[in-house]
């Protein structure tokens, strides 16, 4: 094996570390994106028996966004195994208790249930804020593109820019400004 081929072999089978910013992202939609990188589906050498999955670091999982009224409509079921041990926790209650749980469950659910799933999940790191330990952050070499644009709040835009922005609506001539 030549020196070039050896390096190509390392580069092909080395694990890449990706970072994904969950700010204003839908966890159920971004789970399909994260899953692709976790399982290695984006690689041409993919095979179910081939251990080619990457590592994904999710940051800002506290700032995920759910669509419409899903925060108060989506319920998470758990049963302790004892009679009467069933609980239904609403999404916002679960997020209050553990801000990483919704995204973890979404990724877990997006993958097919087999023996490999638990091991693949071990390669997913989720952090509620932006502080990631240095020994994890120093491995990251790639950022995954977000599923939707992060919206900007009106009070975070400079006042001059709001004033100079092209206007569509004009007040009628005898309107009293309020």
């Amino acid at each position, binding site marked *: 094996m030549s020196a070039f081929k050896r390096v190509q072999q390392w580069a092909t089978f080395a694990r890449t570390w990706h970072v994904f910013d969950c700010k204003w992202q839908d966890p159920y939609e971004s789970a399909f994106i994260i899953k692709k990188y976790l399982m290695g589906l984006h690689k041409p050498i993919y095979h179910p028996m081939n251990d080619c999955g990457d590592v994904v670091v999710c940051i800002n999982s506290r700032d*995920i966004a759910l669509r*419409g009224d899903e925060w108060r409509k989506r319920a998470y079921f758990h049963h302790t195994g004892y009679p009467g041990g069933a609980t239904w926790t609403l999404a*916002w209650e679960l997020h209050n208790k553990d801000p990483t749980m919704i995204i973890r469950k979404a990724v877990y659910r997006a993958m097919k249930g087999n023996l490999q799933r638990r091991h693949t999940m071990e390669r997913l790191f989720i952090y509620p804020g932006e502080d990631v330990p240095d020994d994890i952050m120093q491995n990251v070499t790639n950022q995954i593109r977000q599923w939707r644009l992060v919206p*900007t*709040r009106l009070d975070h*835009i400079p006042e001059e820019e709001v004033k100079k922005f*092209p206007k*569509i*609506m004009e007040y009628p*001539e005898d309107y009293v400004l309020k």
Partner: protein
Amino acid sequence: MSGLVKSSFSLLKRSIFSTSVRAIVTTKQLHVKEIREQTVGSTLVVEGVPVPSPRKDYLVRAENLVPVPEPLVKSEQPPCYMCALGLEVKHTDVLILSQFVRSDGCMLPRRITGLCRRQQKKIGKMVTMAQKAGLMINLTPKNCAKDPKKRYQHKKFNTYFDESTIFMKRIPKPWEKFRR
């Protein structure tokens, strides 16, 4: 005969509610009024002074653009100024939506915005969406905490909306898209 009665009624109505008419004006157009209160001696003088509109220099109209944009919905009637622009506005476009609200974040009525029925409904709903998502938190009533993170229960978390649900009579459940 009935048409004559109807038109005379509408004339009467227009003479009373003069704000709904935007057709012909004798005064200088594109002015807004400002209410000023002065005390002259022992009398309080309240007057409405026309001042130039702050939006006059930045106004965009479809007929002034080159080339003229295609209206979103094709119809025989001339489109309103919003339809004529052919913009696809989302609820995150707060710089556009904030033009249609008062300083307390309340949507302006149709007689002031001058939109068509459909656009008024659409923009009104998108203003609600932007307010619920906390994107126009500075345009809220005075007693508001002005911070979306300080809201109550589920309202303190980020929410986004789908604009295609605006004109749906009933929003389909997530599992219904798999039904044949």
